[in-house]
Structures are given as C-alpha cells and as structure tokens.
C-alpha cells in the first residue's frame, strides 16, 4: 500500500530525513516512534505530498507522490499534528467543505458521508459549534473525522491521541484498530504503551534514519524483561548524546 523509498529532506544545510525506506501493507498498523525532531512528521508530510522530497519518493496505492501527488492525496486520509482546521467554521460546515473538495458534491451523498464520520467520531453533540470553541479532544476528533471522510485505503496520523484524556485515547485506539483490517495505517506517537496496544509493526527513527523496523514482540525480545521505554532509550541514546 505504501512504499517509501530512500526519502531525504534537507532544510537548508540541515538534513531532517536521511534516506528513510519502509513499506506498509494493507492490514498493517505501523507505529512511528522517535525522539522529537527525529524526522517523523517530515517523513509523513512527504508521504502525503505536502512536502516535496529532496530525494527518494513514496508510492501510495500504486501512485508515485512525486509524479502524481493528486492521486496520492485522493487515497490518503491525513491527520496533521495538532489537527489544523478552520476555526471560524462549525463542525458541520468544515466537514461539508472537506466532502466537497473530496468530490462529494451531491447533497445526499455528502450528508451520508458526514453523518458516518460524525457518528464514528462521536461529534453529534458539537456539530453546530464553531471549531474554535471546541476542546482539544474534540478538535482532535474533528481532524480525525476529516481524515476518514472519504474512507481512504491509507491513513497517515501524526500523533492522533495527542491531547486526549485516557478514555478518549482508548476510544481512539479502538476506532483505529477496528479499521485496520482493510487499510494501511501509519501513526506517529510518543507513547510507547500505545504502540504496544495497537501496532503490529514498529519503526524507530532517530536523526532522520530508521534504526529499528520490526514487530513489537521482536523489539521486546531484544532485552527480555525490560520495559519498552528502556529499550527505546538504549536504541536512541547514542543519538541523543551525540
């Protein structure tokens, strides 16, 4: 579903992403881990076609993001970090705008699409409120609803549970898990327990490079008996200190 091939991104003289490659199949939930500034978000932004890679490319559902970014954008649902949305719009209007740009112009289908994600993300009680008046948790769910509206085969979620309370986190994880069977999902997070709870693959990147690409079980097997955060610390420590 997603084929990432040697992605590189330079910001001036700084190399934020340095040759990241991996692939995600349908049914995978890939947990993207790494210290702050490791290049997680930058990699995701390149996969979604928002940033142009300096080198390398990503192929999403058969479409090269460098050659045909629009086709890639049609197939991806993307939740950006801190869920940006137009604050002056109501939830309904905002989802209506997304539906229209996603090509659902007919009133009946547009309504049906919106209705589905409003129910899925439990937004019924706030749908007539403007987004600026919503709490962090609701804003995050609006961003999630927006990403799911066109039922995309690929989901890219940048810190989807950030800012949610423990119950909401759990619920969000359940929704993601339920959808996993027919989608390829990439999510980034700082929370190691989250990766254990829902991901079937882990990629740890540090300083723009992939340092680990394996299943949670084999990661745990690296140091039997240790907690995941100890293993994470061991793997990324050299990067932090240097």
């Amino acid at each position, binding site marked *: 579903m997603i084929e990432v091939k040697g992605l590189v991104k330079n910001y001036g003289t700084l190399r934020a992403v340095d040759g990241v490659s991996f692939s995600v199949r349908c049914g995978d939930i890939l947990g993207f881990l790494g210290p702050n500034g490791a290049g997680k978000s930058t990699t995701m*932004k390149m996969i*979604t*076609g*928002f940033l142009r890679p300096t080198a390398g490319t990503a192929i999403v559902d058969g479409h090269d993001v460098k050659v045909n970014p*629009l086709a890639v*954008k*049609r197939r*991806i649902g*993307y939740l*950006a*970090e*801190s869920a*940006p*949305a*137009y*604050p*002056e*719009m109501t939830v309904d*209007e905002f989802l209506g*705008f*997304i539906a*229209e*740009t*996603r*090509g659902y112009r007919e009133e009946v289908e547009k309504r049906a699409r919106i209705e589905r994600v409003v129910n899925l993300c439990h937004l019924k009680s706030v749908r007539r409120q*403007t987004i600026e008046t919503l709490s962090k948790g609701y804003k995050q769910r609006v961003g999630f609803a*927006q990403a799911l509206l066109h039922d995309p085969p690929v989901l890219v979620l940048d810190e989807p549970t950030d800012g949610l309370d423990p119950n909401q986190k759990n619920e969000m994880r359940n929704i993601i898990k339920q959808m996993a069977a027919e989608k390829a999902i990439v999510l980034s997070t700082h929370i190691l327990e989250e990766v254990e709870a829902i991901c079937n693959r882990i990629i740890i990147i540090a300083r723009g490079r992939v340092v680990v690409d394996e299943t949670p079980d084999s990661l745990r097997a690296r140091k039997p008996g240790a907690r995941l955060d100890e293993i994470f610390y061991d793997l990324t420590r050299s990067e932090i200190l240097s």
Partner: protein
Amino acid sequence: MSQIPPIFKREFIGYFRSPVAYVFLVVFLVASVGLAFFVGNFFKAGIASLESYFMWHTWLFVFFTAAAGMRLWAEEKRSGTMELLFTLPVTTSQAVIGKFLAAWAFLCLAILLSFPMAITVGYLGDPDWGVVGASYFGSMLMAGSFLGVCSLTSALTRNQIISFVLSVLINLVLVFLGWSVFSDLLHAALPTWLVDLLANFSYTTHFEAMKKGIIDPKDIVFFLSLGGLSLFLNVLALER
C-alpha cells in the same frame, strides 16, 4: 478547475464569520463616500456624476485591498491549515484562484454597496449611465489587480502585518508612478520618455480613462496582466 467552487465558498463565507468583514464594509463605505462628499465636493459641485466618488479609489484601495487580502495565505500558514488544504486533492493554482476570487468578490461587494449614491444621482439628475457603468467596471477590475499583489505578499509571510505593509508599499509605488504630482517631481530628474514609460505601470494612468467612461482594451489588459502576474508569482511562492 472543478475544485475552485468549494474553496471560493469557504473563503467567502469565512469573511462574514468575523465582525472584521462588517467593520471593513462600513469603514470602506464611510471613507469612500465621505471623501466624495467632503473633499471631492460631490454635493456642492451640482453635477449628476459619480466622478468625485471614484476619484479616490486608487488611494483607498492601497489600504483597503491590503486589509482584505493580508489574511489570504498568511493566516493559512500561521494556523497550519495550509497543511490541511494541500493534502486535499487540490492543486496550488486552484487554491490560489479560489481564494483570490473570494476576496475579489468581497471587494466588489464593498464597491457595489455604494449603489444608493448612483440611485440618488439618477433620481436627482440625469447622469451618463455609460460613464457610471464604466467607472464601476474599472474600479472592480482595478481592485482585482491590487488584490493580486496583496495575495502574493500574503503568501510570502506567515505574519499578516508584514503582508499588509509590503502590499501597501508595492501598491503605493504603483499608484505614485502615474500621479501627476509625483511625475512632475520625476520630470526634474528623468527624461520625459522614461517618466511616461513608468507612468504606464501605474494604476492611476489606467484608471483615468475608465473614470471618464472610456473602456480602452489596453487598460483592461494592464489590470488583467498585473493581476495574472501576481497570482502566477503567488503560486510559485507557495510551491517553493
């Protein structure tokens, strides 16, 4: 191009979601009509014409189009919604055109809201409606060129104030080049052909004939090409 309508709609409605749009409309009307009455002698002149209303438009637009256009891209960048917009299946030019048209429509609304003046003049006297029509057309066209510059400066920064100041500066220069007071000053230093050439790049020069009711294709071409160039650079600035 089918992606333009939803972007236009969102942007246009967005203006009316904050009191800023209403404040803008009221202040623009008060300023434009006020200048016509108190400085342009609209009433005292005793002539059934709107020339004293339109004569201030080049000056007013320097500030008002900058105010209407400064948020176009700077706000998207600051709030991060640009990332949302450009991960939707929308090309940069579609987004630029959609947002530009929305802001332009808003400016046209501000200009057209002076219609009671036209009605009054028509009721009290016998104005040349051709001239009135040409002036409205020219003014709205010119607003588009001004706005193109504002949209471009807005794409260069995430700060609305910087965008405002930049576009005021650029548009002010483009007004000055054709302003008689300024070109008299230039005559002292530069040869006449150069001063005339520079004046050709001014809003003032190209709006002059339209105010008098003459719609000259070269004026239309000037406004359209200036607007087009700005929007082209706008797309480049966003894609860089």
